[in-house]
């Protein structure tokens, strides 16, 4: 059986889900027997070089670069998975969704105690090279279709392993209650 090809990305996330991914520990050796990585921080491939079978997305979309990235993932991955709370619901970054963007930017760049005295020209960074901030943080499934959701902040390593294993081998997902029970 040819190896399944996996791509991963962290959008508006903290990389915690990727860290949890690494927590599968020695099972990484088992994993590379059944999958090959393409675009992912794990192997540092920056651009898709082929169509992938599985895409794991950490984080929601807080800027236009996230959106472009997510759309690229959707185009290149046959199965797309939201990994963790931020991808699924926006998570911590979406706490700003209750505050108008202008207020957030003013506080961050113009009025905040650490910037008020040193941003004399009152500049909000907007160079064409840096991404534009969206009006709010969007969960991934509001931008593209998401096939599966793996809950957790971060999802437990066992859940990530079980899910990847099931997707890669086409077997039934082993999902004991403990792997998504959080209290």
């Amino acid at each position, binding site marked *: 059986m040819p190896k399944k090809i996996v791509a991963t990305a962290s959008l508006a996330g903290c990389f915690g889900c990727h860290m949890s991914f690494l927590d599968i520990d020695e099972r990484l050796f088992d994993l590379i027997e059944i999958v090959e990585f393409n675009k992912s921080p794990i192997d540092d491939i920056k651009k898709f070089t082929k169509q992938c079978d599985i895409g794991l997305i950490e984080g929601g979309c807080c800027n236009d670069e996230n*959106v472009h990235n997510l759309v690229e993932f*959707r185009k290149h991955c046959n199965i797309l998975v939201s990994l963790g709370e931020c991808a699924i619901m926006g998570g911590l970054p979406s706490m700003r969704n209750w505050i108008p963007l202008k207020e957030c930017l003013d506080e961050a760049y113009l009025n905040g105690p650490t910037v008020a005295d040193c941003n004399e020209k009152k500049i909000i960074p907007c160079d064409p090279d840096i991404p*534009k*901030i*969206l009006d709010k943080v969007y969960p991934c*499934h509001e931008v593209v*279709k998401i096939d599966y959701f793996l809950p957790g902040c971060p999802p437990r390593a066992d859940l990530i392993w079980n899910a990847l294993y099931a997707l890669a081998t086409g077997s039934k997902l082993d999902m004991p209650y403990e792997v998504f029970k959080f209290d």
Partner: protein
Amino acid sequence: MGNTVNNVIKRYNGDETRLMDILMDIQSELGYLSEWTIDQISKALDIPKVSIEQTVSFYHFFAKEPRGKYTVYLNTSVLAVFCGRDEVAKTFEELAGCKFGSVSKDGLIGLFDTACIGMSDQEPAAIINEEIFTCLTSAKAKELVAGMKAGKTVEELKGKKYGDGQNSNPLVRSMVNSNIMKRGEVVFADYVPGSGIKKAVSMSSNEIIQLVKSSYVRGRGGAGFPTGMKWEVAKKAPGDVKYIFCNADEGEPGTFKDRVILTEFPRLVFEGMAVAGYAVGAKHGILYLRNEYRYLRKYLEDILEQMRNENLLGTFISGKHGFDFNIKIQFGAGAYVCGEESALIESAEGKRGEPRDRPPFPVEKGYLQKPTVVNNVETLCSVVRILINGSEWYNKLGTKESKGTKVISVSGDCRKPGIYEIEWGFTVNDILKMVEASETQAVQVGGPSGSCIGPDEFSRELSYEDLATGGSLIIIGEKRDLLKDVVLNFTEFFRDESCGSCVPCRALSGMSKLIMERIIEGKATEKDVAAFTKWQLIMKKNRCGLGQTALNPIVTTIKNFPELYKNRIKAKDDRFCPAFDLEKAVADFDAATSEAR
């Protein structure tokens, strides 16, 4: 202000279970319930402030801010929209100088939306300072605002043209019309006041229950539970104190039959309650009346007083030793979910109208934890008639499993909207003919929580075994945009009326509205539409009927009018969400940084 609070609380003997009345009375004197007032009430009743706040915030008609000297609650129901509500609303906004949901700067006029106020055959309708204004037009709205600015009283604004039947009674004096288009043999037949109670006292309570059971009369509120069985369980339930509730909280958009019955045949209803009390062994009756019908208060209270004077209520009723029964009226304060019997009981106890977990059922532990029977207005009328004419007579009416008649409220696109009392078993086609409807696209049977059917199913009959209904038929003509004008409106209604207790109802009713908007804008995918059918399964796990049926408007139209949805799905590739608009999402950022660029 402190005096008002104390006086009102004294009026109710400091009884916290009367919180609904206390709040309403204080509000009618002070105009609204400020933080300070709530604080005073909390101290006087010696209950936590949050217990009062949660009741206040639950009901539409409790105001935490001033709502204007004249408060206009304009109906937002489908029927109001059919009859030109938007134009009327626009006129009100332009002339009053404020948007709906706010009060004019001078504090004179407050404009607020409200769900169906039970005037579906005479829309658009509004409640202004507790009076009903029907058949509004832009011109009338203009006149009303001018009158308000000139300082006219609501009485003057209302004018002197009263509606038909008892609506012109000196204690009602309302422009509302009863519009009884067809009288049947059960509810709207002639009757001699007091005859039901007189018959009852000649029988034992067990005989009455057996008679009601053998008549096979079922609850008319929609659920269709056998009335005799309910009474029997309540009679057998241990305890000396029991209660009879009459559920007159008809909030289902398109339903207005209880209003008409209470206007034209209130004695029949009250007699039914007394008979129920006699049969079950209850001494207390409570008519839970929706606040929208407060204009009937004086009239109904006067009738109760008359009945007391005639010894049809009170002690030793009709000379029968041990037959004591009295009725009081409990008003709601604007919450559809209170039509659900356990929510209604919670509300009558002064709490948020959240349905209870069952069991125990109200017949075992209901109002104040005592055995309680909750019957629909129409059910109680039927019982009196059965008592007088016998169950054999009743069994001849209707179909095999649905005995008797049903009072239905007909509204929408037809020439003769109004109230029709028909035998069970009439088909939708029969009714459409009777009400002179033509070019009918769909019929909403049983209100939003019922089902929306198309012409293929018009040959179905109204009965518990086929198309059950609590009494409303909304006729939707061909020119209407079914999804936008009807389904979206109903979806918003359920979102607004969810009590928020069960997660599927709270979350999915809100989500449904967003997705319906997407569908209407042509920005949804097939998957979005398919999701509703899956959600329906989860919705069935909600605690009450509201939650269980909140997706019915969508799910029944997906089933019966699939092409309407199909035509609105534009996206070919469903991997991307057409509703996400990147340009719109970065517009705020572009605006915030426009100067620097």
